[in-house]
Structures are given as structure tokens and as C-alpha cells.
């Protein structure tokens, strides 16, 4: 398989994740869609690594995974704090600064 196929698949997954972030209202699902986008990026990185025949892409994908793990921890903690205050995980309910 040529890396083009993998990159095309990663584009598709990235766009699906982006649509999910735009359309869904539940904050946890939005988070999962962001994870999907990060995974799509990782797939592209690994495809580029195998295309160029060196390991740099794989190392970058590894760093992306570490950063994603840290991001999930903080993001879910923020989500829990919001849930405790507003009793809802919907992004529409966190509108205290809106009016």
C-alpha cells in the first residue's frame, strides 16, 4: 500500500472528527472527536515516516500521543468541574459569560 492511501484515510478521519466537534453538544463526545482528529494526525505521521524511510515521523507521533494523554487528563478534570457546578455536560449550558 502506498502512503497516499494512508494519508487519504487520515484526511477522512480528520474531517469526520472536525464535523463531530462542530455538530455535537455533549462535551465528552466533543472531546472524543478531538481524540479522533489527533489519531488521524498520528496516522499521517506514521505514513510519512514509512514514506521517507526514517523514524522521525514515528517519534513525532509518539510525542503527539503523550501530549494527547496530558490534554485528556486536564480536559476531563475541567469537564468534571463544570459538571459539578452546572449539573450538565452540555456545552450549551456553560453560558455564564454569554449575557
Amino acid at each position: 500500500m502506498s502512503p497516499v492511501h494512508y494519508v487519504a484515510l487520515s484526511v477522512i478521519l480528520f474531517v469526520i472528527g472536525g464535523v463531530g466537534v462542530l455538530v455535537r453538544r455533549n462535551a465528552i463526545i466533543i472531546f472524543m472527536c478531538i481524540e479522533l482528529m489527533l489519531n488521524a494526525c498520528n496516522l499521517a505521521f506514521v505514513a510519512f515516516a514509512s514514506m521517507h524511510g526514517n523514524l522521525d515521523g514515528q517519534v513525532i507521533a509518539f510525542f503527539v500521543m503523550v501530549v494527547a494523554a496530558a490534554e485528556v487528563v486536564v480536559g476531563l478534570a475541567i469537564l468534571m468541574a463544570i459538571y459539578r457546578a452546572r449539573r450538565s455536560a452540555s456545552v450549551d449550558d456553560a453560558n455564564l459569560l454569554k449575557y
Partner: protein
Amino acid sequence: MSHQLLAAGTNADAISRETVFWILAILATGAALTMILVRRAVHCALMLAVVMLCLATMYAMQGAPFLAFVQIIVYTGAVLMLFLFVLMLIGIHSSDSIVETIKGQRLAAGLAAIGLMVLLSLGIGHAALGPPTHQNDALNGSGNMPGIAQLIFSTYVFPFEVTGALLITAALGAMVLAHRERTSPKPTQRDLVARRLASGHLAPDPSPGVYALHDAADRPALLPDGSTAPESVSTALAQRLVEDEEPPAVMKEVES
């Protein structure tokens, strides 16, 4: 054994690689689409797990066994479990509202998606994407993991150190965010006793159907035929009752 398995994943012949790729690609795309369409958050998480496992297999096929295992352990194992854990705290039945709060948001999102797709496809079309450069030998000449370790601890050692700082910051941030400030002082044991005395209900609630009229421990249990069961009272309590020379009120009632 595991070496043979990995080699089977990375050095399989072209046709089987192609077949596996298409199966996995369709599976991953379908799972991702289902993920943004289903309403329940738990189903979403399960679909995300399917996508992640597909991607892990693809990493293994592209000569990245280390990343494949990290993907399974860190993403499917840790991150997804964290998601499910938070889902459990928030409520397993949390589902999305299907009301559009902004008018025409879905349509706009669809248009934006098409635009992004076109943009990315054009970018990739212009990029020079050649065939893989004899990946498995070049990538895994002295083994995949030693190669990655060499890169991380030589070229990328500074980003690696910064990653450590990032992880500590994330842990601290999670601790700060999860900490709840107390608005009232913590009740002491004395406060608890006072509250219980004020409530007028000293003993714990009796088990249902055990005691006839009172829930004190020195009252015997009521049997199905209406008689009492003296052996249900602890012998220590029974001795104390004899010393007091005064049978409890309920016993008298039941006996009479």
C-alpha cells in the same frame, strides 16, 4: 514467536496487505461516522475504540510496532478508560440533545467539512508523495524500538524533557481542578453525636420485619406465628435485663 507475528504484520505480501488495508479503512471510517451519529456517549466511546484498534493495526502494517503497542496501551487502554470513567461519574445515560441551538449549524458544519476536505485533498495532491522507501529495512534495520530510543535520546532529547514538564503540569492541573473547596467546616465527632441526639433516633434503623414495636436491641424478634424469639436477644443483654429485674414493655405486651 512474537517476532514472527510482528514480521507477519510488517512483511506480508502486497495483496494481503492491500486487503487488510481496505478492510481496516472501511471499518475505521464506518466506526468514525457512527461515532458522530449515535446519540449515547457510551456508544461513541466504543466506536472510538474500534477506530483506535484499526489504527493500531495500520501502524503495525507500516513498520511501527512500537507505536502500535503504545496506541493500544495508552489510547485504547488508558485514555479511553478515562473517558468511560468520567462518563460513569457524569451518568452513563448522558446523551446529546438533538435541538439545534444555532440556526443552520448542521448545514454550516457540513459545508465547512466539505471545504476542509477539499483543502486537505488539494494540499496532499500537490505534495510529493512517493512510494515507501524500503521501509522495513531502513526503518527497522537495528530494530524499531532501539531506533526510536536513539532518536528520542539524541535529536529529540529537549522535547522529551519538556514532555516531562508537561506531564507534571497536567497532573498538577488535574489535582487543582479536582480539588473542592469546603464551604462549611468539617463536622467533628461531637457534631455528629449532637445531630443524632437531636434527631431523636439513636439506634440504626431495624431490619424490616424483625422487631415488633420497638427497634432497640434488647427487644426480641417477632416470629411469623406472632410469638417472640428470646434467643434473638444477645445473652449479654439478657443478663443485664435480669439484673434490672424489669422486663421490657414489649415482652410484657406480647406475653399478655
